[in-house]
């Protein structure tokens, strides 16, 4: 018994030590700033001059953004980069923006292809550094419509280089789903004949897809922006998704799982990215994807550099390479999105590619709601109500899935 008591005392002492260590430090960043909710941007210096490469660069990217020929020998914009710069590319595919934010917080990665619902969180969290665009020669060729936007810059200071943009599409099995759907109603129909074979994106941000659908089907809710939802609007969206849950076979965030599910026929209808459709079609699955008539949620991605980057020179070289006309065209065609570099439009294999994807068509992208982090200050400018913030979205998403 005596020994047991001693061990317990030692354990408690260790616990107290850990507590003390945990409580000290980190009391910065309380002064009001220009960001949402009075947040200020942590002061981080941008790189002044470009040095020689460190031999490696660790990349977090969406599936299909970093291809070295291992998926398809013809799809490769990494090997040349490695040869030219001597920077070996280690890439990690993330399935959701939330995963990207958590991964960036580890400090193990140098660059990330962040969407709008991750970029601001990374900037205000001090996880990414401002970017010196003078060190990125290809930046001058990026469409002006993508530069210095609310999701990739703060007070005129760019925090990354635009990569490209696109819309979340609706994919279906052409041999099963007849007639072909035209609207998001297909996935929200409570009496769908495809019960148990519908799929949806497994992230709280998917609530915005329901809100977008409600914008056209229930205009009296007054939703102006699917990322700015007050209590009533939010409840309508989550109710719609709770009803949809009965129709869902499985949710996806791993793109390989979705390809396999559509190929086998476990899923026949649901949200997708163009690249997933391409992979499924390459696998001989009879699927099609399209932009439904309500418009869609989408993304405008930005390559950002970690504030804790151990390979900043290789990171800058990567950011310059990935938006070079040739690479940007290759990524855009492979992933199925509009490129960011205007010169990329001459490099695509399909000469009409930029027209098909509306690369320079700002009016088209008015219909696409880029992923944005919902915050308590309504993003649509309303000041008389508070909106549900992302943590409320996250908890609601758990509840929806049941």
């Amino acid at each position, binding site marked *: 018994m005596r020994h047991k008591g001693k*061990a317990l005392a*030692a*354990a408690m002492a*260790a*616990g107290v030590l*850990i*507590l003390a260590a*945990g*409580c000290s430090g*980190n009391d910065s960043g309380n002064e009001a700033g220009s960001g*949402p*909710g009075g*947040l200020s941007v942590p002061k981080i210096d941008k790189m002044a001059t470009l040095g020689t490469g460190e031999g490696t660069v660790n990349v977090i990217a969406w599936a299909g953004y970093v291809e070295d020929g291992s998926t398809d020998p013809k799809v490769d914009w990494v090997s040349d980069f490695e040869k030219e710069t001597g920077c070996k590319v280690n890439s990690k595919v993330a399935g*959701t923006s*939330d*995963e990207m*934010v*958590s991964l960036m*917080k580890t400090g193990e990665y140098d660059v990330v292809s962040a969407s709008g619902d991750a970029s*601001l*969180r990374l900037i*205000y*969290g*001090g996880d990414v550094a401002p970017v010196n665009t003078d060190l990125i020669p290809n930046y001058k060729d990026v469409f002006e419509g993508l530069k210095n936007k609310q999701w990739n810059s703060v007070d005129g200071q760019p925090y990354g280089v635009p990569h490209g943009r696109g819309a979340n599409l609706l994919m279906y099995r052409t041999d099963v789903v007849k007639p072909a759907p035209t609207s998001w109603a297909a996935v929200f129909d409570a009496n769908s004949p495809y019960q*148990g074979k519908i799929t949806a994106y497994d*992230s*709280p941000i998917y609530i915005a897809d329901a809100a977008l659908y409600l914008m056209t089907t229930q205009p009296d809710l007054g939703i102006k922006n699917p990322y700015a939802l007050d209590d009533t609007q939010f409840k309508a969206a989550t109710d719609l998704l709770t009803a949809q*849950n009965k129709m*869902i*076979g*499985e*949710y996806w965030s*791993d793109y390989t*799982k979705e390809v*396999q599910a559509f190929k*086998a*026929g*476990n899923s026949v209808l649901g949200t997708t990215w163009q690249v997933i459709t391409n992979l499924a079609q390459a696998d001989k699955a009879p699927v099609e994807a399209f932009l439904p008539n309500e418009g869609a949620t989408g993304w405008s991605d930005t390559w950002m550099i970690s504030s804790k980057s151990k390979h900043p020179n290789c990171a800058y070289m990567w950011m310059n390479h990935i938006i070079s006309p040739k690479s940007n065209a290759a990524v855009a065609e492979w992933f199925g999105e509009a490129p960011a570099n205007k010169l990329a439009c001459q490099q695509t294999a399909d000469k009409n590619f930029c027209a098909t994807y509306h690369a320079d068509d700002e009016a088209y992208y008015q219909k696409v709601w880029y992923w944005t*982090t919902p*915050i*308590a200050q309504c993003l649509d400018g309303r000041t008389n109500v508070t909106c549900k*913030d*992302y*943590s409320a979205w*996250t*908890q609601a*998403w*758990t*509840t929806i*899935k*049941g």
Partner: protein
Amino acid sequence: MRSFLHRHPGVRLAGLLSAPLLWLVVAYLGALAVLLVSAFWAVNTFTGEVVREFSLQNFRTILTEDVYRNVTLRSVGVAAAVTVICVVLAVPMALYMAKVASPRSRHWLVIAILTPLWASYLVKAYAWRVLLANGGPVDWLLGGPGRGPGYGLFATIIVLSYLWLPYMILPIYAGLERLPDSLLEASADLGARGSRTFRAIVLPILVPSIFAGSIFTFSLSLGDYITVQIVGGKTQLIGNLVYANIGAANNLPFAAALAVIPVLIMVIYLVAVRRSGALEEL
């Protein structure tokens, strides 16, 4: 030095035990302590930075929202079902291995039980995803596409039972192997029938072994989140909620609060097992 240690057995013992004790206290209990402490913190909802201020909000959310109770009950149900299936399959197999099979084939049977453990967990789970796919082998055996169970709760239970079965067979086999054949013979010589021998001789050895195995299968199932992601369809278990709160929501404090649930369940389970006297038999 040697004579000093010889004269001071206390120092000798301390030197010998300090490394494992350090491991136990710092790495093992320390990690649990950090988990418990961070469960009372919160995160800044926008930047995701941990705010180190004491609050009971996480636990209040878990206790008041229905979804967490449902998921907890579902997880315990899955763990219990997996354990029961493993017991039903493992007892006859272990009995055969320990008492019926010839020593030569016993060797091979043990190897056969262990072989699946050499393959990666993920490979086995994905193999089951293919087996259970629409129009896959299981559907085909049951008469065509869509006839099988498909992905969902049932598939999760099957695959977890498959994965953890060796952890149930081995303790039962080890327990039965300790049972001398002479005891069984003596029982028969004294006129006991098969059922009486089973009750009086085999069962007292069997029960503690089953409890030992059940600790493995129950706790492994309770914490699992990968199998259910692969074959579980839209099913959520506690593990998924923890994973979603760390991976997706980046809310470590809330994940820590959720992780306290399986810890409590396991503590209750272990206390119950201890009450039954099974732990002394291990």
